[in-house]
């Protein structure tokens, strides 16, 4: 119909590229170019690890922990921080920004549709989380002699469940946040209490009993427990996995229910 398609000289068209793959590639490029995600989601937890590792007190064995040092017990917390930053702050910020700027609306008018860009965002943030976790484990092992998780399968399963719970919450924040600014505020409001119950300031075993119970019911508390058990060579407790799955389903369903493209 147009001059372009009528050109007989057009060389054999390259094989049709997958829109999802192209979107993922572009979203990854933008994620790196935007710098917020790499600095906070990836750099910040690694920096915390380096700082904690430099503190002599963190090398001491934690009493009643089965021989773990303080740093050993903090590594799962750092892993959890990294997941939470990417899923609760970076992901909703990007999606709400896209909604505000009409990016999702424009995609609705194309064959790709806006669902694929959400998929691409989930893939990018999940992928970056995996990269960060591996970097954390490797740096901790090489620089500070922290052992790799003794139960690697259990560790991987925990990563999946924790990511699902946090990505579900992140999508929910994106669904209900009216503006990028508001969703950043909501994300932070959720992030800090969650980090508290994940044991960032006070390790869960040292919390009063009531707080410990609450902590185990939060996604980060459950994730911390599952990571800790994997480090010790055990399978994550089923209750912790069920807790994370419940958060994933509840918030995932809420996100689907409330999500607006415009």
């Amino acid at each position, binding site marked *: 119909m*147009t001059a372009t*398609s009528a050109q007989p000289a057009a060389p054999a068209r390259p094989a049709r590229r997958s829109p999802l793959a*192209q979107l993922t590639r572009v979203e990854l490029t*933008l994620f790196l170019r935007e710098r917020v995600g790499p600095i906070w989601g990836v750099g910040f937890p690694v920096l915390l690890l380096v700082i904690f590792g430099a503190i002599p007190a963190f090398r001491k064995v934690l009493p009643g922990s089965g021989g773990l040092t303080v740093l050993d017990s903090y590594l799962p917390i750092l892993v959890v921080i990294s997941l939470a930053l990417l899923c609760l702050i970076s992901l909703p910020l990007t999606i709400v920004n896209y909604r505000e*700027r009409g990016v999702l*609306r*424009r995609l609705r008018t194309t*064959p790709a549709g806006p669902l694929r860009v959400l998929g691409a965002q989930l893939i990018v943030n999940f992928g970056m989380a995996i990269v960060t976790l591996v970097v954390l484990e490797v740096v901790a092992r090489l620089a500070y002699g922290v052992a790799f998780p003794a139960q690697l399968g259990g560790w991987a399963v925990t990563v999946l469940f924790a990511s699902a719970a946090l990505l579900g919450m992140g999508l929910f924040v994106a669904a209900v946040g009216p503006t990028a600014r508001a969703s950043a505020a909501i994300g932070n409001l959720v992030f800090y209490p969650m980090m508290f119950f994940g044991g960032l300031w006070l390790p869960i075993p040292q919390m009063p009993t009531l707080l410990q119970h609450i902590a185990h019911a939060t996604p980060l508390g459950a994730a911390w427990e599952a990571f800790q058990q994997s480090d010790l060579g055990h399978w994550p407790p089923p209750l912790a996995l069920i807790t994370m799955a419940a958060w994933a389903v509840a918030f995932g369903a809420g996100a689907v229910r409330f999500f607006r493209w415009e």
Partner: protein
Amino acid sequence: MRLGPGMRQTNAVGAVIEVRNLHKRYGQTVAVDDVSFEVREGEIFGILGRNGAGKTTTVECVEGLRAADQGEISVLGLDPRRDRAELTQALGVQLQESQLPDRLKVGEALDLYSSFYRDPADWRELLEVLGLADKAGTAFRKLSGGQKQRLSIALALVGNPRVAVLDELTTGLDPQARRDTWELIESVRDRGVTIVLVSHFMEEAERLCDRVALIDKGKVVAIDTPAALAERAETEQRIQFRPSAPFEDTLLTSLPSVTGLTRRGEMVVVTGDSDALLEVITTLSAHAIKPRQLRVDQGNLEDAFLELTGGHAEGEVAAR
């Protein structure tokens, strides 16, 4: 008088968009109240009206972004809601106020969007045509308003659409960028793309559109060519000139076609019906008077619009 003569002459052959008795309300507000029109293959069809008249809602139903409450819409024989996958392949859309991520580069955006389509256009050629060839490596946020608008048009065309819907295309552009964009739209039409142009800017429609639908308060008040619509409003001509020699008012006011005469300094302004110009010139030349700086104002699309919509006071019709 709701449907212009153009409407009834049209038959189904050659119609790429058919809208029949479209209704859409938001809560208590009726946005679109019985809109019908057809867009023929290869034309530039304007949808004109004030802000809030229901233009954007109408095209959003055509694009399948909104579900109509009542009525039938067919685009290239497809149902915009049911046949979304097929429709989006063939319908290019330029939305009002739709941005891209700040750091996305022009070339990346076009390469990405071209991957969505079965048979995309060569986006490098498209950039050339749009005068953005040297901007392929520029981030979206570094583009000027006119460049963003042209990129938005490029994205609407990158899928090689048969029909393109362009909403408030030149809003916010300076006069030069606006003229360039108009030329561009004509060249797109020359490639065989049918174009639906949504505008509240009468001059744009007069210049570009083959036919326009005037929409007011959710209803179509007329569908016709801009010239035919302007003719309807052509109740009076205003003839203005500086006479080369003095003359008595009665010389012209005695003419049957002349309805009035006023003087402003050296200038004379004569009003009259469609025969007035010829009679005035003939009479003046018979008395060896030359009309200098002659200017004739006739009804235009804007006058037609005001007349057809009852010229109610709220709001400007054309943002100049």
